């Protein structure tokens, strides 16, 4: 649970549709595309559940300088790749919220508080949240983001939070729900289903 409890940044900007989190972390600790996260809203009475869909590294002059130099030592390279706390900004799509112990898969009534800490959703909560698949349609409805890749990543994350024996059944169910939602476009469905294969 320790890794779940550690904040992965704070909310810098937000709307009911989603929020932006920022953090300085070395690469191994960056949040991952398709990670479920939570951020407090409504004075802590609820938590917005977000799905991280865009990670960007903020402007970093040192990296630029090092990239340009010819005499970068192996230790410096390793330092940059492993140690450096790179400013990471990520966007999370609001896919639901938690009210008490209950998860609701619709847009939250209010965005999270600015600077609210953002946490990874624990495996148990991921299981609980993704037991329903209504959030898929919230994701699919979004424009201008790589929706299908996000769906695949999110559902693989959700599957990974389950015991080995349940994963395939879960992915089949989830993919079937995707099929219901994007069944009109078989080419799209085909690649989506392929990326959901266990």
């Amino acid at each position: 649970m320790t890794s779940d409890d550690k904040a992965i940044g704070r909310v810098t900007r937000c709307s009911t549709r989603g929020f932006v989190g920022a953090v300085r972390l070395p690469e191994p600790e960056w949040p991952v595309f398709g990670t479920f996260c939570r951020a407090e809203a409504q004075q802590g009475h609820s938590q917005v559940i977000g799905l991280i869909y865009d990670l960007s590294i903020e402007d970093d002059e040192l990296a630029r300088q090092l990239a340009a130099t010819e005499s970068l030592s192996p230790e410096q390279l390793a330092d940059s790749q492993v140690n450096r706390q790179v400013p990471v900004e990520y966007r999370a799509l609001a896919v639901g919220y938690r009210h008490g112990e209950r998860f609701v898969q619709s847009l939250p009534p209010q965005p999270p508080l600015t600077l609210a800490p953002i946490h990874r959703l624990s495996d148990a909560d991921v299981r609980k949240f993704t037991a329903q698949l209504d959030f898929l349609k919230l994701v699919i409805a979004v424009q201008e983001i790589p929706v299908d890749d996000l769906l695949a990543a999110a559902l693989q994350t959700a599957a990974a939070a389950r015991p080995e024996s349940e994963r395939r059944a879960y992915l089949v169910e989830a993919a079937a729900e995707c099929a219901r939602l994007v069944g009109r476009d078989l080419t799209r469905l085909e690649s989506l289903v392929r990326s959901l294969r266990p």
Partner: protein
Amino acid sequence: MTNKSEMDTYFGERKGETPLGMVVGGSLSSGLLVKLDSRLSIERLAVGRYVVIQGKSGRKFFGLVTDIALDATNPDLVRQPPAPDDAFAAEVYSRQVAYGMLSVSPMLMLDPEDDQPRPNKTVPAHFAPVHEASAEDVERVFGAEDEKHLFLGTPLDMEAVHVNLDLDRFVERSSGVFGKSGTGKSFLTRILLAGIIRAGRASALIFDMHNDYGWAVKEEGGHEVKGLRQLFPGGQVSVVTLDEDTSRSRGSKVDRVLKIGTQQIEPEDVEMLSGLLGLSDVQTGALPFLRRRLGPGWIDRLLSDTPDDELEKMVEDERIVSSTLGAIQRKFEFFRRMGFLVPGAGDDAVDDIFRRLNQGSSVVLEFGRYGNTLAAYILVANYLTRRVHERYVRKMNEAVGKKADEPRPLVIVIEEAHKFLDPAVAGHTVFGNIARELRKYNVTLLIVDQRPSGIDDEVMSQIGTRVTCLLDNEADIRAVFSGVSGAGALREVLARLDTRQQALILGHAVPMPVVVRTRDYDEAFYQWLGATDDAGERKQRAKRGSEALFGE
């Protein structure tokens, strides 16, 4: 079924049971479309199964699965299916995009306040859940087995359920047993007849072309099964043979030998043979004239080798063309080969048979070796039927208003029925008349045929109950369904019957079309029939038998 609580259980709701699917479209005439629940395997289903549809209003519908199809939400799927080795994609697609569709022919409906299902007049609302009919559901539809209901077989995959035929309704109108050869028509017919005889609802006159009904019958496998005379040793069945030698050599008990005096044969008896004997219209047309001029011994005289002055005179007078007469004489040579034809006035065989029938004894007319001669079969069947029918008509007319005096209902069983009922002759033969006049004179037909398409449409449409084994000829299938509404859906069912021991029953004697695996014609069946003289004991035995068999 008047009890309220029983009513509630009629096609009861299936709590906790997954529906097969839900109604998504269709019409009363073309049948309902049911989208199959993705969790069920389409491969588990079969045409001919029953379903119960829970209508929104509380009304329940009973239907028959008539077709099973694969469908997809996206029609492009057929051009763009998932990769063949991608089991995951196949599983996903089959949950949502691709699904199974059932065509369901709605058959019966039941209102909450009704105690008996009625023929369908409407369809269930959209999205009504569809359940597989349980054994209890089907059992209720087909009623209980009793004195007037014959257990004929079990619906497919429901061994515990009995499909019972309403015998009164069965004999009330002409019926048919159809199916291509080798599908077990005669077994089925034997079961039907045994049922009719046991129930005492009617007498049967069976023109037994291939010696299938009277005495021991060899099955295809070589196993010997009992004939009706053995099953009913108490006098309910008489065997009359045309060929004493064959009957004796088979060890058949014969109650009477049928001899027909040539003088008893009328031109009308010969007319039906014209096609088989190769008589032209002119020649056939000359027969009544010859009969009139030559008198009752007309056939003997035509066949006589000694010169006949009168015949010569007729030719001289140009009453008949010499070549025509010659042809008739030549073609009448056929009668010489028919050993059952004896010169002279013959005996009282027809009266005897009528008497037997009217006293409640069914008559199996064994043709022995003559069964291979279609002309002989047609001649005799036609000869006897005309005369028996005539007596029935007379008796019915005498008994007007006096029910008790009415002759006992009679079922005349003919094989190769299309020979008697083809459109060219059906209009003016006694068989055509019987089929058309319904039960006016208490006589109906049970026609056994492998080529129903050869039977006159009008006659076909009068066939009340049709018991059909596998048919694969399109025209025959069409013929079987002539005059049946919603038949299109049933065609698929019929075309997919097994070759043996499966039959589709539809019409007058069953509440709805049903595919059955017909009951076995075996010891258990014999036991049920209780082959003993003593009626009381017979009943006892029957009861015990049914208890043992069906655990009532």
